[in-house]
């Protein structure tokens, strides 16, 4: 007889198998990492450059380069590039963060011959036509203005300024900055930072011998300037705890952020901090979700996270709540932080979190595209190849005592930033 009150027995999650990529160097020295996996005849090819926003000496330069990159080259117009990429059903995406810029191509294997040469032409010979720059900046400025109407954007901007105060990570563009970007700025940044001597190539999907040969014939034959190595000195943020309020009149919700700068992924405490963060606000069943959404109904969602960038990490709690409950929500967040610093996490809760993280890890190392992203984390942070195995060991061995110690070490001096119509201070 079926007894529905008894849960099926949980089986251990011990089949996480993080495979390392194939690695080789092309004839011209460019390193390639690849995963030959998956049943479909598709590939994703990423070329990563040290061209993140931290390198720019003027606001918006890195993002404008990234966005105008495919708007014209020495050979093709913007329209011709768009026509060719679209015609072969390919997707060309460019991504930018504080540290890196990535040009990603998604393509059916059978069309790669037609598409890759165009992408490489963009990477090596973008021309940044003035009219395309103007059009982009105009569109982008209107998006910026749209953002200024959203409490979430206002709050995130204030967060970045507060947490990374004084460092290259802490700059936020203003409306006026959109009028200051010149074509010379873009060309200089492009030439210095989209340089093949600093590029890394990642490929995932059907990386067949034929494809490898084609990549060698294409990317491996590009000429490389050996002389421009990118050097960079990061200014550490001058952080102090503050409470910031950005007024948005008439807003019916407040966007709340808590946070501070913190350790990076290569720090010995990082894995434990990650586990602690999951308990606090890192999954649907987290304490913040259970209290502020599921018990109080103040919000549609709340979460916390640790973001590890190349130079420094940051911790964040983020939510949007009804204006009338702004202060109550802040009080509840503070009480959850206090609780996790003073009381031991019950074993049962900790076990749920451990299995949740293991399950996520299993899912996030499934298939070539996910594996590639995980490997990039290892690669760009200089982590050991067995990083994920060590993480799994840390998950198994984490104790409530250790996590309380971590909470007291890292959940201190958090700044509070609110955008909305209710001044919480």
């Amino acid at each position, binding site marked *: 007889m*079926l007894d529905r*009150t008894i849960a*099926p027995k949980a089986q251990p999650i011990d089949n996480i198998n993080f495979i390392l990529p194939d690695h080789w160097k092309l004839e011209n020295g460019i390193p390639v990492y690849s995963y030959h996996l998956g049943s479909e005849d598709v590939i994703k090819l990423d070329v990563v450059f040290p061209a993140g926003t931290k390198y720019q000496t003027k606001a918006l330069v890195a993002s404008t380069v990234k966005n105008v990159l495919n708007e014209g080259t020495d050979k093709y117009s913007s329209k011709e590039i768009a026509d060719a990429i679209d*015609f072969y059903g390919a997707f060309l995406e460019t991504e930018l963060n504080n540290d890196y810029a990535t040009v990603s191509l998604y393509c059916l294997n059978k069309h790669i011959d037609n598409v890759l040469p165009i992408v490489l032409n963009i990477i090596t010979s973008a021309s940044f036509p003035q009219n395309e720059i103007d059009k982009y900046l105009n569109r982008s400025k*209107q998006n910026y*203005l749209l953002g200024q109407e959203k409490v979430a954007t206002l709050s995130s901007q204030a967060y970045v300024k507060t947490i990374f105060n004084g460092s290259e990570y802490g700059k936020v563009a203003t409306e006026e900055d959109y009028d200051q970007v010149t074509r010379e700025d873009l060309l200089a940044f492009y030439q210095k930072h989209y340089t093949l001597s600093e590029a890394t190539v990642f490929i995932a999907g059907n990386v067949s011998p034929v494809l490898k040969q084609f990549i060698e014939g294409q990317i491996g034959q590009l000429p490389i300037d050996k002389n421009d190595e990118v050097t960079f000195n990061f200014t550490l943020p001058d952080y102090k705890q503050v409470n910031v309020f950005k007024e948005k009149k008439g807003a019916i919700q407040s966007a709340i952020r808590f946070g501070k700068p913190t350790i990076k992924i290569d720090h010995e405490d990082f894995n434990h901090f990650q586990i602690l963060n999951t308990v606090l606000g890192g999954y*649907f069943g987290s304490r913040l979700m259970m209290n502020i959404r599921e018990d109080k109904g*103040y919000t549609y969602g709340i979460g916390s996270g640790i973001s590890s960038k190349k130079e420094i990490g940051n911790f964040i709690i983020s939510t949007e709540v009804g204006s009338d409950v702004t202060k109550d929500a802040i009080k509840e967040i503070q009480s959850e932080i206090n609780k996790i610093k003073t009381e031991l996490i019950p074993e049962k809760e900790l076990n749920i979190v451990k299995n949740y993280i293991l*399950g996520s890890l299993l899912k996030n190392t499934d298939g070539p595209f996910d594996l590639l992203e995980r490997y990039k984390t290892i690669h760009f942070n200089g982590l050991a190849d067995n990083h994920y195995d060590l993480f799994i060991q840390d998950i198994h061995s984490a104790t409530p005592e250790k996590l309380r110690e971590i909470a007291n070490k890292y959940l201190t001096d958090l700044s509070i930033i609110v955008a909305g119509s209710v001044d919480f201070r």
Partner: protein
Amino acid sequence: MKFTKYTLDNGLRLIVHQDKSTPIVAFNVLYDVGARDEDEKLTGFAHLFEHLMFGGSKNIAEFDKPLQAVGGQNNAFTSNDITNYYITLPKQNIDTAFWLESDRMLDLAFTPKSLEVQRNVVIEEFKQRYLNQPYGDLWLLLRPLAYKEHPYKWATIGKEIKHIEDAKMEDVKAFFKAHYNPNNAVLCIAGDVDPEEMLEKTNYWFGGIKNQGDYTRNLPKEPKQTEARFLEVERDVPQSAIYKAWHMCDRMHPDYYAFDLATDVLSRGNSSRLYQTLVKEKELFTDISAYQMGSSDEGLFVISGKVKNGVDINVANLAILDCIKEVQKYPVSNQELTKVKNKVESTNAFTHMNVLNKAMKLAYFELLGDANWANEEAEKYNQVSIDDIQRVMKETIVPSNCSTLYYKAKN
């Protein structure tokens, strides 16, 4: 995508897709109920109900915790047509998914606390996504402009917050009885699983669940629109926007694919007509898109764009109409047609890289009538001719069938 299909005695349909390459199983339960099945005085219910489905079931106090404890994740979404619940978890723990999903199909806990809290959560969602967001109320305006009779005239979040505030326990229970029945659901499992074993487990966990209600969908048909409709609103937004919607065929109609490709010709990718003409060449819009809603019943063909500041909104509107006339007057080129078909092909290939996508797709097509239509779609897109695209554009994208919304920036 190969699959095996079974139907249980209680009417529950089971689709199993075997993919041996992954340690993850996708467990997708699709219910044949959406916002279109709501009472006009109780809108937003299908979506509110989706939230309540996580508030504990007859024999299990909490849904999320036991799932997380075995390494699983889950979520759900509600549309005007369907409500879809999905779990991904390590395959060795698939029994937990059976246990949780079958118990909440059997019966919910219906605690007053859960109703109270989820009402508040949904109200905050209403505010966050529809009210406190620039252009957030757009669908709350455009739907009732385009639809006068069919329940597509309200959005899934509901017509107004009040309907959610007023939700009563008895209404909630009645909704469950009417719609959350095995014969109104499709279970699709994708992963490294054996179909026969899945059937056995499905019979074990779901076989004893009885159908409690008997809902027959009988929705009012939207009368043919005979004259152009127009609405203008002013809001605190940084730039004006135009939304235009035309009635089109339903999801199962053979012309569906021609409509879909027509929207791709107009706006898919940077090479598309609307983007090239209106954003890049004429610089009248800062962004523009064309899409169709993919609704099960007769849907909408939509063009929407944000007007560049300083441009007269009427000029911008006329420019959209010019682009449409162009497609109606001159057939699209072979090159353009091949392009949009190539995009469909590659999108499909990338979608199939993931078991959850595959499970959702198979379940959805089974609900429409036959899971195998998921496999036949590619050929249906392939069959679309240049003439088909011109014909549907000429027949349908006409002023008397159009609802236009000017969403103007103050000042």
